[in-house]
C-alpha cells in the first residue's frame, strides 16, 4: 500500500468513523437521561438530510441546514411527547418495540414524501471533482467539512454538558433521577431536551454527510446499526469513548475494503457488534463493575 493510498483510506475511515460517533453520541444522550435506546436515531439523520435538501430548493444552503436541524429537533420533541412522556415506568421490551415502531413510521412517512430516489445536498465548497491535496492524497473538501463539523459538534456537546445549566441538569438526571427531582429539576423536560438534542446533532450530521454519502428514505437503518455498534464498543453512555470507538470502526471498515468485498462490509461491523456483546458487553473502555449496576 502506497503512502497516498494509506492517507486516502485514513481519511475515508475518519469521515465515516466520526459520523458513526455522532450517531452513537445521539444514542448515548437519550440513554443517559432515560435508560432507553432510541432505535429511531438513524431516522433523525435521514430526516435532517432530506429536509435540508427540500428546503435548499427555496433557501440558501446555510439557512436550509439550520431549518432542517430545527425541524428535526421539533420532530424529536414530538416523538418524545407523543410516545414516551406519559408512560409510567415502562419495561425495556416495551420501549424497544415502541422506538422500533417510531423508526418504521418515520421511514414510511419519508418514503411517501420523498419517494425511493437517492438525493443529496450540493457540495458546500466546489463540486464532485474538486479536491484538496493532503500529503499527496486527493481529498474532497466535503470530507474536511464532515470531519470539521462533527468535531465541532463533539466539542460543543462536551462544553454544553460541562458548563451550561441545562447540560448540568441533564447530567444530574442521568446520575440520579430522584435526587435531581428533589433539587427542582423536571426530569421529563430533560428527557424531551435530550431527544431534541440528539435529533439536532443527528440532523446536522445528516446534512454535512449528504453530499458524499447521499440520502435515501432508508439510509437511517444502516447508520443506526453502526452507531449502536460504536456506542456499545465504547461503552453505553460514554460519549467520549464513542468518538474513539467510532474512529476505530470507521478505520477498520475503510481498510477492510481492500480485503473483503463491499457487499459484506456491514457483516464486519455487525460481527464486531456481536463479538463485543458476547465478550465485553460493558465496552472496550467501560468498567465491568460499573456496567453491572446499570439496567439494560
Amino acid at each position: 500500500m502506497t503512502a497516498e493510498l494509506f492517507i486516502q483510506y485514513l481519511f475515508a475511515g475518519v469521515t465515516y468513523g466520526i459520523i458513526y460517533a455522532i450517531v452513537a453520541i445521539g444514542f448515548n444522550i437519550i440513554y443517559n437521561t432515560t435508560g432507553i435506546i432510541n432505535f429511531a436515531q438513524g431516522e433523525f439523520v435521514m430526516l435532517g438530510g432530506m429536509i435540508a435538501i427540500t428546503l435548499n430548493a427555496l433557501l440558501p444552503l446555510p439557512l436550509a441546514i439550520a431549518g432542517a436541524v430545527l425541524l428535526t429537533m421539533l420532530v424529536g420533541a414530538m416523538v418524545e411527547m407523543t410516545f414516551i412522556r406519559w408512560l409510567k415506568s415502562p419495561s425495556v421490551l416495551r420501549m424497544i418495540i415502541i422506538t422500533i415502531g417510531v423508526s418504521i413510521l418515520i421511514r414510511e412517512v419519508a418514503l411517501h414524501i420523498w419517494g425511493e430516489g437517492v438525493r443529496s445536498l450540493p457540495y458546500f465548497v466546489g463540486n464532485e471533482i474538486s479536491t484538496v491535496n493532503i500529503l499527496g492524497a486527493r481529498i474532497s473538501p466535503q470530507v474536511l467539512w464532515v470531519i470539521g463539523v462533527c468535531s465541532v459538534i463533539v466539542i460543543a456537546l462536551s462544553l454544553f454538558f460541562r458548563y451550561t445549566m441545562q447540560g448540568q441538569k441533564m447530567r444530574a438526571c442521568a446520575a440520579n433521577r430522584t435526587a435531581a427531582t428533589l433539587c427542582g429539576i423536571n426530569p421529563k423536560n430533560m428527557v424531551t431536551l435530550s431527544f431534541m438534542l440528539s435529533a439536532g446533532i443527528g440532523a446536522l450530521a445528516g446534512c454535512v454527510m449528504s453530499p458524499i454519502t447521499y440520502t435515501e428514505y432508508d439510509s437511517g437503518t444502516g447508520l443506526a446499526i453502526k452507531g449502536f455498534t460504536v456506542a456499545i464498543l465504547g461503552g453505553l453512555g460514554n460519549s467520549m469513548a464513542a468518538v474513539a470507538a467510532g474512529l476505530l470502526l470507521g478505520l477498520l471498515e475503510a481498510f477492510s475494503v481492500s480485503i473483503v468485498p463491499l457487499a459484506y462490509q456491514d457483516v464486519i461491523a455487525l460481527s464486531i457488534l456481536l463479538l463485543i456483546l458476547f465478550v465485553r458487553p460493558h465496552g472496550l473502555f467501560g468498567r465491568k463493575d460499573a456496567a453491572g449496576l446499570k439496567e439494560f
Partner: protein
Amino acid sequence: MRTCLPILLLLATVVLVQQLTQWTGTPFYLTQLTMAGYYSLLIIGLCLVMGYAGQISLGHAGFFAIGGYLSAMLTTRNLLAYQDHQLVALADRLGLLMGRHDFFGNEILALHPWPAALVAITTAIVVSFLIGVPVLKLKGHYLAMATLGFGIIIYRLVLGTPIFGEADGISEVPGFPLLAGLSVSGDFGSRVSNYYIAWGMVIIAMLLLLNLINSRVGRALRAIHGAEDAANAMGVDTARYKLRTFILSAVMAALAGVFLTHYSAGIGPSEAGVMQSVRYVAIVAVGGMANLWGALIMGVVLNFMSLRGMFGSYDDAVFGAILIAMMLFAPQGLLRLALLARIKNLLTGKKDGAA
C-alpha cells in the same frame, strides 16, 4: 384434555373455511391462507420465545431465510456438470438426487427436497445453538440488538452471495413430495391439498406447543419470564430452558421457510429483511405476547390481509403503527384487554375481579 377442545375447534374452522371458499367460489383465498399458515408456524414459535420465555428476538426472519434459502439453493443447484464427482455419484446411488426438466426443457439434476430440508433444518439448529448460547445471556437492549444484528448479517450474506441469487433471490424451486401423491407446490390443482398440508402442520405444532406450555417446561419458562433470578434460585436451569426454546422456535421458523419456499416456488432477500422480523414481533405483540392462540389468530388475520394487499403501499407503516399502538395502549395484547375480560365477566354473570 384442556387443549383438546380448542384444537378440535381449530380443525373444524380449517375445514369450514375450505368448504366456504368452495361454496362461494373463492378458492383463490386458499393460496394466501396457506401462506399465512406457514408464517403462523414461525409466529407461534416466536410467541413461545417472546411471550413465555420473555426473550425478544428481532432475528427470526434470519432462521426463516436459513430454511428457505438453503432448501431452495440445494434443490435448484444443477449438479449435472459434477455427475462424475465421487460425492455426487454417491448421493445419486443413495437416492438423494432428483432429476427433472426445467421450463426450457433442460435437464436438471439436483438434491431431492427431503435431504435438502434436512440440511436446512440441521443448519438452523446448529446456527441457533451457536448464536443462542452467547446471545441468551444478554438482556433488554443488548438482546434486541444482538438478535437484530444476527438477522442483518443473514440478510447481508444472502444479498451478497451469488449462489443465493443476490438481489434476485432463487426461483423455480421444485415442489416438495411429502408422500406419494401429496406434494407441497404452487400448482393450481393441488391448492386444496396444500391448504390442508399447511394447516395440518400448524395444528400439529399448536398441539405440541400447547402441551409444552402446560408442562413442567412451560411453568419453568413462565418463571423465567416473571423473574429470571428467582427462577434460577428455585432450581430452574434458566440458561438451558431459554436455549432449548430458542432452538425449537428457530426450527419452526426454518420449517416455515422450507415449506413456504417450495410452495411459492421461490424466495427473495426481502424474506430475510429486518422489517420481516419486526413484523413477526408485531404480530406476537398484538396477539398478546404469552398467548399462543392470540398469536395464531393475529398471525393468520394480519398475514392474510397483508398478502391480499389490503394495506397497499402502507404495508410496513401499518405494522409499525400496530406495534406502537399495542405497546402504548395494550402491552398485554388485544385479546386479553381488561375490557374483554370485563365483557366476559358480564356475560357469565360474575362480578368484576372475580375471574
